[in-house]
């Protein structure tokens, strides 16, 4: 592991420790009943801060890289990304298109946008696209604002943009693949151990997570593997899809796990009821739509010369 990665990991661990201390103090020691697990609105904002600190930690660990530049181009791209993500989320959230979900795997193609924008334009653009796009999309649909999911979406774009930090994209690909694979496998195992968990993302909230939704993450991961090796020569596609996958797992994982404290879910409910039905299908879209976007954008770049 090189110095950069070590810096990133240390920052993450420290932040998590600070947060756990806060919850223990507020809930356990002071005994404030609403601070304890259960309906806990204050924690949403704590998690927002945690997510931001995570991103900040990564930044601090790798400050010298050119990927952190925010110039005119990045400003315009992040605005476009956020607007596109907002519009697509709104359109496919059931307002304009009521697309029948195949056994609880609802179509959310919009997720390809933060992943693609993050990969193509960098982590800051990716974060803004995911977070602000999610905020506006939810506000347009009328869902209301769920800050921890906005940050989770922001993290998807952020992590998808991390390959820009590494000069040689190819080397890190395999370790990212392995990490993603392990996480996907763990989540699926937890699913099979908890078949009765209710799917929290699908009306009427009392259906156990279907088999399709449960294994969707494994399925998605298989697709990512296929794309990675089928397009092995095209480093851009492989890297975009792989890092997008990691971003998806970690970003959605962040939001779902934060609900353990915010909504008082059990860990099994958070992982099986929220994480799987969201992250799994997202992965499937990532594997299919992101390569399309990468190829199209590469063609545009060749044409316009920039």
């Amino acid at each position, binding site marked *: 592991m090189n110095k950069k990665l070590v810096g990133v990991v240390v920052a993450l661990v420290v932040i998590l420790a600070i947060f756990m201390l806060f919850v223990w103090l507020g809930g356990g020691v002071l005994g404030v009943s*609403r601070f304890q697990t259960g309906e806990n609105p204050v924690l949403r*904002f704590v998690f927002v801060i945690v997510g931001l600190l995570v991103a900040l930690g990564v930044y601090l660990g790798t400050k010298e890289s050119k990927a952190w530049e925010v110039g005119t181009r990045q400003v315009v791209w992040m605005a476009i990304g956020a*607007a596109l993500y907002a519009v697509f989320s709104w359109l496919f959230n059931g307002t304009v298109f009521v697309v029948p979900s195949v056994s609880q795997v609802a*179509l959310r193609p919009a997720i390809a946008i933060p992943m693609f924008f993050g990969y193509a334009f960098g982590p800051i653009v990716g974060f803004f696209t995911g977070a602000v796009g999610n905020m506006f999309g939810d506000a347009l649909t009328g869902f*209301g604002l769920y800050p921890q999911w906005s940050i989770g979406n922001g993290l998807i774009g952020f992590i998808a943009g991390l390959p820009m930090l590494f000069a040689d994209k190819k080397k890190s690909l395999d370790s990212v693949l392995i990490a993603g694979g392990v996480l996907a496998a763990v989540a699926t195992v937890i699913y099979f151990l908890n078949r009765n968990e209710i799917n929290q993302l699908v009306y009427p909230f009392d259906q156990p997570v279907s088999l399709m939704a449960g294994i969707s993450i494994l399925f998605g991961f298989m697709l990512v593997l296929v794309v990675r090796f089928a397009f092995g020569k095209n480093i851009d596609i492989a890297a975009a899809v792989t890092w997008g996958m990691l971003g998806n797992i970690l970003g959605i994982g962040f939001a779902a796990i934060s609900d353990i404290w915010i909504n008082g879910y059990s860990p099994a409910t958070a992982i099986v009821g929220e994480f799987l039905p969201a992250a799994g299908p997202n992965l499937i879209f990532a594997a299919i739509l992101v390569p399309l976007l990468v190829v199209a*954008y590469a063609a545009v770049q060749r044409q*316009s010369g920039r």
Partner: protein
Amino acid sequence: MLVSWRYRDRKSLIQWFDPRAWLIFYACFLVCTLFFWDLRFLSFFFVIAVVVLVTSGVTWKEMRRAFFFIIGFVIFYALLTFLTGRGGVEAYKQEHLIRSLAAPFTVFGWRPTLNISVERSFFAVSQLARVFSVAIMTILIPYTLNPALYGITFRGLGFPDKIAYAMDLTMRFIPTFGRDFQLTMDAQRARGYELDKIRGGLIQQVRKLGPIIVPVTIHAIIGSEDIIDAMDLRAFGIGPRSWLEQLIYRRRDRILIAAGVLLLVLSFALLVLGYGSFWVPEFLVRLAGG
């Protein structure tokens, strides 16, 4: 060409204030509603939302479509919660049944039963109140925030220049991309592409979304080059940015902000003191024989 939100200059309560002050108040309002499940407190916020709506000067014709959607969505959501009782399980422990309607049939061995309890009905009502208040306040924002002021508003709230401008651009682009999406849909439809009838396995379905998502995205990115050039030619980002409009806080704005913060602090205090959790009026419980 840009399409824009339906903003008009109106004489109304919202527009009487500095947009920054209003956004701050809106944020406090949002956070406060999150703290309460108690209908008595929620109705206070609901009343505020309705007052704002009525005095906003936005005509019914203007917001009819958005409103119908919100109403439909809110009622659907509350109804679902009511029918299934999910979500309330965290808020109440005991249920006093008013009536239990069992279906005369079973579906795969499971008998659909509707347990109408006092708690559940009241929970649905509380949820209606809360979601509605938030929705009303949110929906009014694009109608009452002057687009010329987007950038300076975010800058005035403390965001760095570039981020404020990015948010300005985002809000301006949303209607445009909505329109682009519609154009692309029509163009593709003329070439035989059908989005309404998506058949096939999951992978097929996702692939079918490609012809609509990719063109809109790439078109947006291509268009961005012109905007980037325009901004660069006007020396964007070189020094601190100046804005055409100026926003000055007047006394009424300071009062609004103070009110918002006071509301937030009070709500938080009530939260810590243990008030505000789900409540059902006593007489209803007795009615149910509890």
